[in-house]
């Protein structure tokens, strides 16, 4: 009978590989949200874009460290907090806000398994 610990480690490794394989798509979703925010012409559009970015960042906060990418999780946490603050503020994000979010998305990417 297979050692449950070995089985777990093997399955965890498989899941980690799957997580890594899906990272480009996650980044693409966040970058798409940033582009959507850049082109937003109304507060509703801007909030919708922020929610796209926040949702993906939130998932990374909860998953990245579990798969061994703690720094990516931390960077995603910073990004999520920024999105939360802007959503709560309820005003059109300024160019500085948008630049900051863009930088924070880049910071997440820098810590990810697809950046090396």
């Amino acid at each position, binding site marked *: 009978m297979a050692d449950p610990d070995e089985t777990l480690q093997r399955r965890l490794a498989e*899941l980690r590989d799957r997580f890594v394989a899906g990272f480009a798509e996650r980044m693409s979703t966040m970058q798409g949200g940033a582009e959507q925010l850049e082109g937003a012409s109304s507060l509703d559009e801007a909030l919708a874009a922020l929610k796209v970015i926040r949702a993906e960042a*939130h998932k990374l906060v909860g998953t990245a460290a579990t*798969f061994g990418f703690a720094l990516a999780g931390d960077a995603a946490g910073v990004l999520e907090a920024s999105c939360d603050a802007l959503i709560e503020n309820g005003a059109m994000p300024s160019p500085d806000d948008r630049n900051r979010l863009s930088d924070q998305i880049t910071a997440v990417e820098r810590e990810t398994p697809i950046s090396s």
Partner: protein
Amino acid sequence: MAPPLTKILYVEDDADIRTIAKLSLEAVGGFTVQVANSGAEALDIAPAFMPDLILLDVMMPGMDGPTTMQALRKLPEFEQTPIVFMTAKVMQSEIARYKEIGALDVIHKPFDPMTLSDRVKDIWRGHHG
């Protein structure tokens, strides 16, 4: 002495986390785990599965964790079932609020797959201590 904890319903919208938590709880903890990908699905599954404990993600699209808990509590069979929230938001004020509205405890995400079951067992024992 605490009654045995055998069946756990885990409610989480993120597929990766759902898979890893189920694997961890089954392989390390020896629990029987049923998963649901939303609050609505949890409400469908729970009556047939009759979990001893429910692990509930806080932030989910549609019904979030607190809303799902309220809906579960309206079902007579789940009025008293221990519900533990899982969240990536670790602000003490939010954790206190979750406990105020009826969560037994809160587990932080990300979690360590090797120790998640121990954390759940500790909470269960504490509840029945």
